[in-house]
């Protein structure tokens, strides 16, 4: 049974049903109104229930199906490095400026690749920082701090 639960169908269906439940749960706090004058809660709750029903259907169909659709094998390292790079960019941009944000983002995102090539990474990060600053700050005049406030 456990192997079946980690198939694509039940996982996807569960994700949809869960999002639907959240929509219903939170949406019930908003006034629903009536059909002639719908309040802000009417559509979210209706959508939420539809998601619950559809998600449950997908999950059940996946459990009952004979085809063995297992979750494809995943290597989460690239994803984690990319997301960490984006997070570093978001956190550093305003306090430390565009140059630092780009250097950190590239340095971290390149960890997704093995083997790590430090010299190439530094060169790439510096080049991207220069190009990014040239295009977006000097060229287009976007109000982005270069070196923090």
């Amino acid at each position, binding site marked *: 049974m456990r192997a079946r639960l980690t198939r*694509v169908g039940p996982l*996807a*269906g569960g994700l*949809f049903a869960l*999002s*639907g439940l959240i*929509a219903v749960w*939170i949406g019930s706090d*908003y*006034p629903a109104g*009536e*059909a*002639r*004058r*719908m*309040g*802000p809660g009417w*559509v*979210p709750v209706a*959508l939420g229930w*539809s*998601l619950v029903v*559809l*998600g449950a*259907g*997908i999950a059940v169909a996946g459990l009952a199906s004979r085809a063995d*659709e297992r*979750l*494809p094998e*995943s*290597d989460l390292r*690239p*994803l984690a490095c*990319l*997301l960490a*790079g*984006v*997070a570093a*960019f*978001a*956190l550093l*941009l*305003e306090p430390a400026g*565009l140059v630092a944000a*780009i250097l950190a*983002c*590239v340095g971290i*995102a*390149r960890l997704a*690749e093995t083997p790590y090539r430090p010299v*190439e990474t530094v060169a*790439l990060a510096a080049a*991207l920082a220069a190009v*990014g600053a040239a295009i*977006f700050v000097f060229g*287009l*005049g*976007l*109000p*982005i701090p270069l070196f923090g406030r």
Partner: protein
Amino acid sequence: MSDLLDPLLLGFGVALTPANLFWCLAGALLGTLIGVLPGIGPVATIAMLLPVTFTLEPVGALIMLAGIYYGAQYGGSTTAILVNMPGESSSVVTCLDGHAMARKGRAGAALATAALASFFAGTVATFAVALTSPALVRFAQLFGAAEYFALMVFGLVAAMVLAHGSVAKAAAMTLLGLALGLVGTDVNSGQRRFTFGIPELADGIGFVPLAMGLFAIAEIAVQLERHFVRPAAARVAGLWPTRAEAREAAPAALRGTLVGAVLGVLPGGGALLSSFAAYALEKKLARDPGRFGQGAVAGVAAPEAANNAGAQTSFVPMLALGIPPNAVMALMIGAMAIHGIVPGPQVMTREPGLFWGLIASMWVGNLMLVVINLPLIGLWVSLLRVPYRLLYPAILVFCCIGVYGLNNSAFEVGLALVFGALGYAFAKLGCEPAPLLLGFILGPMMEENLRRAMRLSRGDPSIFVERPISLVLLLLAVGLLATVLAPSVRRARAKAFAE
């Protein structure tokens, strides 16, 4: 005749000014570039460039963004033919016969066929857009809230049916998109919904961080996991097709153009679906279907014509109704909004220069693309030698700057991160992100029109079946769903997508 000619002349007058020619060329070049490079598509590129358009005239901005979309259709075929890897998802089928031709030493002929078929399709599609948009604008005068709601229901159903993979998953993704679209302040009551007390969410989830997460960050993660080694590009010797090849390609390009022009208008349609459908049609019509996959010229000409025609006719619902049929058109609407233009049927009469200038620029852009692609092919091929490990950090950094630059909001960069993780999960679970995006865009418009229609009818839902246009649209939606659920169609659909 002058009804069509005068506005087109006005359009060419706008499109041929030096500034707009420059933006058209810039868009076409950039589109070819990202088309050639796998792992970055027009959605991410256009989203990245939205802040750039702050400083441009609205016409120039839209001309450039449009050029990126159809330019990518040209560039995508180059990678497909030479390295057997689709530069764009819409050139997946071109790999089959295009690369087979390249292996036989006919790479040049395949490239020329693809470019010329695309140019022919682009020319026809430009006129199709010019002819049908004003007619649709006139038709849209009959639309009230009920009709708009029914139209969007039809659009979403069509998008579900036309999406790859399971219809149930596509439907769930659409609903999830609709729900995500509701996040933010309700315009009627001022109630904040699903904001979790975060003030930045009061204006709703931004379209750009959502698209960037789902289409750029998640895509890079999936690509990196594959550890692919890029195969060497085939040699290009001699560009011209033989007479026999040309004779086979011409009718295929014509059929592909028609298929693409029709399917492009449909929601969820556009370039991708058109190319698949055109290839399937050619295979069905061929006297000797066994040749497909072995280097049949028709298998290059038809899908390449279709994806370009589809890319262009998908502008029709966006321009005439203000309703985007796919993610790229939603971004175009976003670009209009940046410049204070409210999308909808009134754009044609209030902004004729923009409306017709954009249409005319498509033909100009297509002409430029033939010139860019054929003689400069060597340049594009050398771009393929840039390794992905240098490319992906660049894509990531420019995406981050693009998201931040739109609203100067670091929060939105964080939002893109969340949707990147979600997009990766969707990819693993076999859920296409395109229907979610469409639902997200249409969600607020649908709710608004539903509530307006129900207010007009005093709470009686029969308004949707009593008004004839609304009834027809809803019946079409039900019919579409019914046909997909019928077992015979289901098998045929599975087979069509398997190809």
